């Protein structure tokens, strides 16, 4: 049985390397990874962002700007507002003789520690020239923008498999070959599994290529695979539905823009909207994929957290599955 499932997968793969559009889809993860690397120098620089009060202590600002991105605001209220936005701004505010640090609470521990250390170094009047140690690195050398791009690329990769499945099913329908396969000993389930392989193997190969090329190879691969594969199951299901519903390769692939909308929405909300609005995208499975991968890429993910996200993704996908089953059944009967 495995041999036959594999044969179905290899056939799809072979055909997919022959057409420009499908070959392009296969190579997208690698292309994305190299594009991120090409952009990386400009997005690598500053990793910690500080919000401070304008004119309070220009000397301090000048010092800290050597190590972090500093933004200045009129008063405490404005700084607090900035910190409370979704991203990882940390505020440094004056109090009496000293300073205190305000955070929103969801910043990676490294960012906060780094900020504390910077502030301490400033108070101690440590100069870069004086120091023999590398001050900059506290394990906080993951640039957030790069991480975000890598995360989006991985998310995209998990959708690509579904697109290819849709295209491959359109091919079978156009050539009328499903009836020929139906009079061989491969079971219908075996055929479906063979067709599904692309939707699992492409995300695995794609996400691994991306993290290897962009230098995230030290992350917990097992955690990442769990997140990626659970999201891929959903993409794969949508691939079958769109493949059965469309008779033309381009419209089948194009129908995936329906997915990119919630994907983009999930990313945008996760990155830029304040905590109290996050619930608005909880229903999008890809939101949890993005969050899960973000934790994995930051190396702050815990197993309970990953298992929880995986569980949520699978549960939401299960709901989509139940919604789509009648459609799939009808589709399979008429071919």
């Amino acid at each position, binding site marked *: 049985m495995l*041999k*036959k499932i594999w*044969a179905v997968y290899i*056939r799809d793969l*072979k*055909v997919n390397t*022959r*057409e420009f559009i499908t070959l392009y889809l296969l190579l997208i993860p690698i292309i994305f990874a190299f594009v991120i690397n090409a952009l990386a120098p400009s997005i690598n620089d500053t990793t910690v962002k500080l919000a401070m009060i304008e004119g309070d202590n220009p000397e301090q600002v000048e010092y800290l700007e050597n190590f972090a991105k500093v933004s200045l605001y009129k008063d405490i209220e404005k700084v607090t507002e900035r910190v409370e936005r979704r991203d990882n701004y940390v505020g440094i505010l004056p109090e009496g003789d000293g300073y205190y640090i305000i955070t929103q609470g969801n910043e990676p521990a490294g960012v906060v520690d780094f900020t504390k250390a910077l502030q301490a170094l400033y108070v101690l009047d440590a100069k870069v020239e004086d120091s023999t140690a590398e001050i900059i690195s506290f394990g906080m050398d993951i640039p957030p923008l790069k991480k975000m791009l890598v995360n989006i690329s991985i998310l995209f990769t998990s959708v690509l498999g579904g697109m290819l499945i849709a295209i491959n099913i359109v*091919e079978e329908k*156009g*050539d*009328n*070959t499903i*009836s*020929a*396969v*139906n*009079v*061989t*000993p*491969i*079971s219908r389930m075996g055929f479906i599994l063979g067709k599904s392989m692309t939707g699992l193997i492409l995300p695995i190969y794609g996400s691994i290529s991306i993290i290897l090329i962009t230098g995230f190879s030290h992350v917990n691969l097992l955690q990442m695979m769990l997140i990626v594969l659970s999201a891929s199951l959903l993409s794969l299901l949508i691939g079958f539905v769109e493949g059965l519903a469309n008779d033309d390769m381009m419209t089948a692939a194009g129908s995936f823009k329906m997915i990119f909308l919630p994907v983009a929405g999930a990313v945008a909300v996760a990155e830029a909207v304040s905590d109290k609005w996050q619930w608005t995208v909880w229903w999008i499975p890809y939101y949890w994929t993005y969050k899960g991968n973000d934790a994995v890429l930051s190396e702050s993910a815990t197993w309970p957290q990953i298992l929880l996200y995986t569980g949520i993704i699978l549960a939401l996908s299960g709901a989509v599955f139940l919604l789509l089953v009648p459609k799939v059944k009808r589709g399979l009967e008429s071919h």
Partner: protein
Amino acid sequence: MITVKNLHHSYSRDEKYAVKDVSFEIEKGEIFGFLGPSGAGKSTTQGVLSGLLQLQKGEVTVAGYNVKHIKNKMFNEIGMSFEISNVYNKMTAKENLNFYRKLFDVETREPEDLLEMVGLGDKGNIKAGDFSKGMKHRLTFARSMINNPSIWFLDEPTTGLDPAIAATIKDIIWKEKKKEVTTFLTTHNMHIADELCDRVGFIVDGELILIDSPKNLKLQYGEKFVDIEFVKDGEPIKESLSTIDDKDKARIKNIIDNYEIQTMHTKEATLEEIFIKVTGRGLV
């Protein structure tokens, strides 16, 4: 090898049957010809027998398997050549066969040998999408033999092929028969049906009208036809008429009495003429 009892099939799952109460048996090693006009229900019958269509009503066994509850391994015994060729256009002829053979559990034939047999020996590395209609049809036919089937369904295997290639296909079917392959053959080609089939069934409007061997049919109807060529209003006309059918006899008399006869001879009835005689319908 094949038994069919009271087979009914309705695409709309109601009383509008495309195949109605069809029963027959096919012996091991026999070639059974299924003849009938377009839309008679030939492909539908073949679809149910080969497991492509769900058996709705009646009993069908194929190679000892009950078709009501199909087991996947039954397909190791079956070969199916489709009426409308269905091969992967983006793959070469050889790749098509190489992929297909991997889906079977039994020993399979070499793609090169099969392509050679159907006259595509030098076309193995060409994409099926670049094939002509006839070439695709031959590839579909070749594919049906890849698992050495003991039961072979052939739906119009020679349609659209030139006479020389049709003769090659006929020879292949003949050779397979020598290996005791049981063949269910649907065709419009009466010469092939006549030469190959041990028995033929006539099907019209979903109903099986008659089953007999071509030999018996000819004994019954043979030498009882006359071809008459005569001139009517300056136009030459040719008719084939039975010498035992009352209506035809009257027609012969009428022609002799009223027109100038040019030629007239008795001959053996062709299967096609017999079909028309028996069913009152043409074959197209």
